[in-house]
């Protein structure tokens, strides 16, 4: 009996220790898709803007929309970007009310402007109604917004992550980290994903 209890406890402990992944509004596609794609990105990083504008739409249309991949956006504000954390908090708050995509799109589109003047709130207000804007501002310091950012930062540091954007591809329990120049060569990204799907 004692042995059974000890065994049950030993099996249960890792489950209790692992913090739940607080994904809300920042994941797209079928969660049961064979490939998991996690994008670690910072809204103030120019390379992340390029990835968001050029590569991500192709990944979404070729894999996420086709049910081949599940896409999760990971908040990874870099310390050298003074508005990076605030941008992540605002977008995460928007994600809580189902407005992740318009919020991320407008922040990346107007990155040059708000990176200079810090007018994030004003930039976001163009895609939010007044009541949504109030909801977002009320949510910023809420644990529902802070917890996902802290979770994603911890996960990124644990990888470890050298730069943004970094894409973590998980397929059959194996993880592949894509970063650097190669990430902007969609031909190679596509070849990687196609190769995995054929295995």
């Amino acid at each position: 009996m004692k042995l059974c209890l000890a065994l049950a406890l030993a099996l249960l402990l890792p489950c209790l220790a692992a913090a739940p992944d607080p994904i809300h509004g920042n994941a797209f596609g079928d969660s049961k898709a064979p490939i998991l794609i996690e994008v670690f990105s910072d809204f103030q990083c120019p390379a992340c803007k390029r990835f968001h504008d050029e590569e991500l739409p192709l990944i979404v249309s070729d894999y996420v929309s086709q049910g081949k991949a599940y896409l999760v956006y990971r908040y990874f504000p870099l310390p050298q970007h003074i508005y990076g954390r605030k941008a992540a908090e605002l977008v995460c708050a928007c994600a809580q009310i189902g407005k992740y995509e318009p919020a991320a799109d407008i922040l990346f589109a107007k990155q040059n402007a708000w990176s200079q003047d810090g007018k994030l709130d004003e930039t976001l207000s163009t895609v939010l109604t007044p009541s949504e804007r109030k909801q977002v501002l009320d949510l910023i310091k809420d644990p529902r917004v802070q917890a996902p950012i802290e979770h994603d930062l911890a996960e990124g540091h644990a990888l470890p992550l050298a730069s943004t954007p970094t894409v973590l591809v998980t397929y059959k329990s194996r993880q592949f980290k894509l970063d650097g120049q190669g990430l902007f060569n969609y031909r190679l990204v596509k070849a990687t994903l196609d190769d995995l799907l054929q295995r």
Partner: protein
Amino acid sequence: MTFFSDRILGRRTPAGAAALVLRVILGAIFVYAAWMKLRDPWALFAMSIDSYQVLPLWAVELAAHSLPWFELLLGVLLIAGVWRGVPAVAATLLLGVFFGLMVRAMAKGMQIDCGCFGPGERLSWMTLLRDGALLASSVFVTAMAFQPRRGARPTPVE
């Protein structure tokens, strides 16, 4: 160990025995490097090559497809000890190219994957040191491969 020391190393000079051991180690490392690349999607290795920014895309793809198989062949030939001079020279040239590219990338401050044993290993002073040690070993193995064997008949002089 007695068999190994008596039958394999016994009739060799200390330098010859060292060359034999280094040749087999180099061969095993090449086989391991090839296997690590071949088990993953080829495009991941292509991304590592591309990050050095020295080759056009068509050459990157060609290298990503062919280099792991070439490393595998080289490793097997080094371990088997056939055509000793040829694989030793090829390994030295290949390691020389790798070392040169790594030094160039480090000098340029590029924060990229080494690509040495497949994806996921950052280029660092440690990887540079390791590749330098492999290159030095390969140069030694190559030099020893062209030494006349002990007991070989001298060429008769008329």
